[in-house]
């Protein structure tokens, strides 16, 4: 599904990713852990194509296509989804309008007919209930005045509506209390269907008790320095990252 080969990338002139390799097959859940500044968030932004995140060299194919030949919106329509660490507030644009535009774009790309407003509304309400968001949120501005937890749940709701092939969760657990964490995790787990893949970027092992990964990678100094299973996450929680960072230099 996703093949990353020797990826080097810069942010504001500073080299952040240093030859990263990663291969993700359909249905797999990969956790990426690592210390602050290791390049975890950069990876998500590079993959989605955010301006200012410059690829120096390396290749990434997504569903067999060269990802770097696609615009930001084309990657999304192709089925790549990033749940933002800091979702953006857009007052004046209703959540409903935003979601409908997103879903319309994705469906059009897939050759599916437009959903009627009525059907879309129904679907959106169902999804909002799955993440315990009051449907009244659909009428409000995008993330406007939402609490941190509500914003994260809104991200998961978008993921449910767009049904992407690959979901990148960028520190979705940060700032969440245990109840919200369970809601978010349940939402993610409900979407694991054997075909959809996930990259779960996190700082904390706790999230991986709820979203159990197939692989755990440690990212340090811009590349993956260790790969293991969920037991590796527990080892990291106990020992910290220092011992691996030293190895990677």
């Amino acid at each position, binding site marked *: 599904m996703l093949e990353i080969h020797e990826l080097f990338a810069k942010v504001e002139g500073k080299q952040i990713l240093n030859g990263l390799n990663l291969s993700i097959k359909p249905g797999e859940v990969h956790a990426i852990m690592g210390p602050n500044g290791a390049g975890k968030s950069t990876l998500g932004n590079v993959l989605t194509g955010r301006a200012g995140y410059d690829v120096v060299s390396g290749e990434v194919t997504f569903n067999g296509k060269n990802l770097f030949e696609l615009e*930001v*919106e084309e990657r999304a329509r192709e089925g790549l989804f990033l749940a933002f660490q800091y979702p953006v507030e857009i007052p004046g644009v209703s959540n409903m309008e*935003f979601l409908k535009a997103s879903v319309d774009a994705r469906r059009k790309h897939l050759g599916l007919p437009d959903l009627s407003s009525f059907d879309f509304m129904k679907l959106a309400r169902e999804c909002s209930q799955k993440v315990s968001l009051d449907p009244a949120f659909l009428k409000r501005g995008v993330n406007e005045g939402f609490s941190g937890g509500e914003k994260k749940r809104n991200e998961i709701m978008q993921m449910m509506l767009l049904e992407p092939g690959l979901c990148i969760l960028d520190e979705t657990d940060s700032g969440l209390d245990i109840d919200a964490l369970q809601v978010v995790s349940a939402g993610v787990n409900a979407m694991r269907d054997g075909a959809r893949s996930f990259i779960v970027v996190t700082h904390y092992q706790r999230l991986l008790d709820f979203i159990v990964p197939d692989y755990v990678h440690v990212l340090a100094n811009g590349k993956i320095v260790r790969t293991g299973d969920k037991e590796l996450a527990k080892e990291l929680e106990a020992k910290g990252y220092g011992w691996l960072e030293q190895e990677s230099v």
Partner: protein
Amino acid sequence: MSASMTSNRQHTAAAAPLNAFQQQALALAAQQSVVGDNERLLSDLRKQGAQEFELATWPGRKIEQWKYTSVQVLKDYESAVWANGSGVSGEFVSERLIPLHATRLVFVDGVLDSAASDEMPDGICLFSQADELAAELIRSNLGKVSGSVSAARRNLFASLNSAWTQDGLLIHVGRNVVLEKPVYLVYVSSTQSNVVTNHRTLVVLEQSANARIIEHFVSEDNSVACSSFVNSLTEIQLGQNAHLHHTRINLEHESAAHIGAVHVNLMRDAVLKGFTLSEGSKLKRLDYQLNHCGQGASLNFDGVYLARHNQLVDYHTCIEHRVPNCTSQQVFRGIVGDKAKAVFNGRIHIFEDAQKTLAEMSNRNLLTSNTAEINTKPELEIYADDVKCAHGATISQLDETALYYLQSRGISPSQARMMLSFGFINELLSSVPDETLQDWLESWLRDRFSEDRSLVSDVRSLSASGAGN
């Protein structure tokens, strides 16, 4: 006040000879027939207005209040006559007006169109139909609200409006009366060219009265140039603890010239919630003069302007905090595209006695072309030392992070820009009190953005400028 007026006359007595527009304007006033009770009610106002207009300095680049706005197009009206269109069609009413559950009064070229209007409830009447009580209210309030501004700052077109006042509308809401239905005033310009129209409205809310008023300016046929000049002045006297929602929407055809003003005096504990929305035209100048005259009064005032093609829109707001313990909050946003021009001049004047004033003003603008122009100027005069006053003005482009967020969900950059430009304005519509009105404005706005890309921000590398606190 009379003393300062005298000195003003002396000061300007040596003014240049009248230009052709001024001469024609005064001739038009003289043509009007004001007879009977109306003559007794209005003659002083008319005379004083004509005198002030005659002696006033004509707008030009050197006059601060007209620095960025040329009235050159008034040359088009040097041989204008009074507009006298006929009534509007039922189709016009159903298709072009806002379907408000309200008392609707439609004026065509300044004349009440009874067929398109509802019956006037108690307290609302034309000046020409005033009974004794109404006449007394008119005598004691008309010209007094607009006249409470210092003579040096008086707008000559407000004076012209007085000179041109042949009739007008009085809305009176008595003590403790809550007007259940909003009053929806529709001012229609017919398709005549080379014509002028005058509107004068007086609103008096007595102690603890409560009302909602919507003023809507519209052209009878939006597909043809109408080229009328409209002068519209609304004076509002808010008594103690009175509450008013006032909305003014200026959406005439872009070939129209409009100079309008709203003057409000707020007495003790009065509350004003104002909203205004305008599209530019060949000349559109709107003055809001809001005066806190009694302690504890408060006002919230939001405004939106859009200008494209070669349009001009100019808002001058002035809030006078004359007494202590009052608040004012003002938020204006505009989008200017093509070769259009917008002016926002927000003046806050805090008098020496007006301690504990809280005054806030914000003006944000999007420029959507490199040939568009915005002149924004906060103007603060603060003579009291214990006040909180904040202002900010920005001219900027769309938020790149928000654009990325929308694109990362599959939305194209052009659609994303449209959504964000729309949202920038739509955010302010939430302060419109009536849901029907809000929906109507939102759908109007949506149409405007989808039919014409000139108001969608595609400018990416503008240098931003700003000033704060």
